[in-house]
């Protein structure tokens, strides 16, 4: 496969991961005002739960996937109900610190349950490239990741724009007090938003587990790097999560190709810095969220 093909496919795959993660962050931010630094931990949990179900218990692929996503949803909602519900209306940085703390706690729980050593899951979807066409080759696990991202984004978009639930969530994002006055159960919507964010992260975790060994410490880095993509796209726009995710992935791939693999992260954070300095609201974000 040519370099171009390599970069293109990697960008799509990595960008898909970022889009999935980022969409969860955006939905959560729009509904609750919380910028979650905890997505990384949910990625880890999702990956491990799927591995456990699929490789240890023997649940077939799609069933395991579904179960993993369901459990992530439940976990996310519970986290809200037990923790963040108490912090409603707290200052921004309290919430930031709380999600950082949550990240660590969840990670620790995973380490205590599964150990800190790398676990290489058996190959679930083939890692082999399916032929090469004009210099382009793609493997089944990569197809899966891209399709999963696309599906998730479409489903999210449909839920938000076509369903009763979606309208209720958007109403809470627009004006929480008015929503409550109009009989919308705001706490349920917040729990839902957390559930969605955790599910998104879980899906990203499953996709990651198809291509890399499981490592509770390393896997959760993506939860922070994705912030560069989210800010690039605009933190209150799901479209932004997609665009920003893809752009970030592209920049990363180019850096890896030109400078070497270890430059991927630093460049991402340079992108983040750049966005914050030059255009804090990102490509698609609204200006109002930015200023004091």
């Amino acid at each position, binding site marked *: 496969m040519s370099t171009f093909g390599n970069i293109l496919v990697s960008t799509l795959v990595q960008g898909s991961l970022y889009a999935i993660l980022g969409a969860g962050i955006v939905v959560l931010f729009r509904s609750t005002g919380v910028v979650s630094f905890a997505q990384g931990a949910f990625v880890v949990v999702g990956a491990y739960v799927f591995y456990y179900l699929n490789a240890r218990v023997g649940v077939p692929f799609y069933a395991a996937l579904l179960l993993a996503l369901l459990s992530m949803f439940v976990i996310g909602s519970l986290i809200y109900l037990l*923790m963040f519900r108490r*912090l*409603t*209306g*707290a*200052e*921004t*940085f*309290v919430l*930031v*610190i*709380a999600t*950082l*703390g*949550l*990240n*660590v*706690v969840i*990670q*620790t*729980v995973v*380490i*205590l349950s599964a*150990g*800190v050593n790398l676990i290489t899951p058996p190959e679930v979807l083939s890692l082999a490239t399916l032929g090469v066409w004009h210099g382009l080759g793609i493997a089944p696990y990569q197809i899966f990741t891209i399709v999963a991202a696309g599906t998730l984004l479409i489903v999210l978009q449909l839920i938000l724009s076509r*369903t*009763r639930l*979606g*309208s*209720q969530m*958007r*109403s809470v994002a*627009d*004006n929480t*007090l*008015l*929503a*409550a*006055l*109009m*009989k919308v159960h705001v*706490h349920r919507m917040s729990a839902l938003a957390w559930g969605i964010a955790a599910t998104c992260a879980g899906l990203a975790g499953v996709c990651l587990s198809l291509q890399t060994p499981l490592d509770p410490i390393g896997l959760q880095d993506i939860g*922070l790097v994705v*912030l560069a993509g989210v*800010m690039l796209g605009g933190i209150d726009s799901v479209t932004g999560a997609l665009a920003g995710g893809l752009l970030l992935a592209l920049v990363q791939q180019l850096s890896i190709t030109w400078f070497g693999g*270890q430059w991927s*992260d*630093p460049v991402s*954070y*340079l992108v*983040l*810095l750049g966005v*914050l*300095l030059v255009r*804090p609201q990102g490509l698609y974000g609204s200006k*109002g*969220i*930015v*200023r*004091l």
Partner: protein
Amino acid sequence: MSTLRVGAKSGKEPIGISGTGPRRTRPLGVSSLLVLIFVVVVLCVVGSEFDLYLGGLVIIFALSALGLDWLMGRTGQVSIGNGPLMAIGAYTTAIISRHPWAPFPVPVIIAGLIGAGTGLVIALPSLRLRGFYFALTTLALQFIVQFAAETYETDSGNFSGLTVKPIRVFGHSFNYGVGYVALLSVILVLTVVLLSNMYKRLPGRMWRAIKESELAASTIQVSVRRWKLTSFVGSSGLIAVAGSLFAYYTGLVSSDTFTLTFAISFVVMTIVGGMNSMAGAIVGAAVVTLSPQLLTSISGHFPQGSWVQRDLPAINSGLYGVLVLLVLLYLPTGIAPSLQNLGGDGAKRLRRLWGDSPAAPITQKTGIPESPPTNGLHSSSATLSPQAQRHGSGDRSPAPSGEERDERSTLVQGSEARTLLTIHELAVKYANGATALNRVSLSIRENETVAVVGRNGAGKTTLLRSLGGFFGTEKVRRRGSVIFDGHEVIGATPVQAASLGIVLVPEREKVFPSLTVAEHLRHLGNAEVARSELPEVWEFLQRLWKSPAGSLSGGERQLLAISLAASLEPRLLMIDEMSLGLAPVMIERVTEVLLGLRQRDRLSLLIVEQNIAVAERLAQRVLHLENGELRPGLGTRPVDGDL
């Protein structure tokens, strides 16, 4: 968005601000300093070498935490930049101290300057952005600095880090022990004194003003930008100095040390110890640094090979996560201020404020039988009671004359409808102490329309909000009793009130700008009910069906809002300032709609109006709210003298 709004703030309570109650901020007082010195002396006398090592480490971390307290606790800026800043200080020291022209304390000073410069650079763009943007900047800084450090180590061949020779002053080498701890303590005490001097004077006031409200501060001559920058630059310099000392102390500077976890641990220190408190920063540093040690010795008691021992590092780092969460959720001011506030005068001063406990939570049906049929008399006489006068409300209006009383009672007693809502001596105060309602009593029957008129600021909106419910975070204090359909609802949240059948259409933001008309009625409300109850409005809204509500005119929004509210099948529908901002034609239209709605069985209407004509047209009874107190509406135009 401006924070200079009318009325109560949105209830966000700053964490750790040293007033949990009305206590004066005390920068580290003389007594606390003495305690600190005492502890250090004891440590030097009885501590083992390892204890002394730990003690020195705690002091260095305390310096770093003090820097963060300056930035976060005093000035209110969120930062996870302690890691990178200490790294910058440490590496600068490691590199420069090798040169003969740079004996101690030259590298420390240079490290401080470079740290300060870094603070300046990262701060400049964030001056006008919201809090978490700066936090993200420091996050980015963390990874960039860590990467730069790793790359430097690899490229220069120092794979396990840079070694730093110990401090030499006048030929004497400092190695671990009493001498080192003493030196560090002196530096700590000096820092505390310098900071305290600033906090007690103008700089401290400037930072606190910025922390409380940047926008408001700028309007009263606080040079926000300048002082924000000073805080960034100063704290960054201090943290870099701590990093420099760290390099000397541990003798090894390695990129493995300055991880994100390391950076976050300083935030944990300030939160756990208590923000806006130097004692808190020091206590927090001690707690966070020593608890892993404590844990290690505890785990020694566990059987060999148990999970506790095997996963110790993980537990260590998980520990601080748990600490943070526990403190954030249960001890919002942190450990040190909580201890300080154990003193009783906090409670005494709280009592002076108003004295009463927060409103009772919503209870089940109280079992109170329907109140005896009331007439307008009940409301007016209660407010003019001697109690009202005793509370200092000097407003005296003449008691309604006998003639007026009869007139009013006929209006109401005509119907045999039962009472839906009884408000008794409702008093409402906002979090800042402002009195919004002062012992209001009112009752409304089923199928009755009552209007409350009055000037702005009289408390009309508060009255409706009290019925419609407040969020807990709005920190509103309510006293008295509000019984709706047999339920006590004085402490209700908006969702609870709405589920009982109380629906409020607010004055300003009454629709959701990004939702379409269709989504309002079909997804939030009940489309069938909307269509059957208000068919004319339904028809009218059809041509706007797909438009986002944000694009609707004032009158269209009002119709949409009323339609939505009506579709929720309320027992009590409340509308705040229906006519505000509407053209006369629209007012007429909406009035017709409401009159039609009233034909519905059991629907009561409570409207608040500035416009007396509208109020009289719609309502069977008009009441007058003046400075938080309810008076019977006279139903006539006010005379000149009142203007």
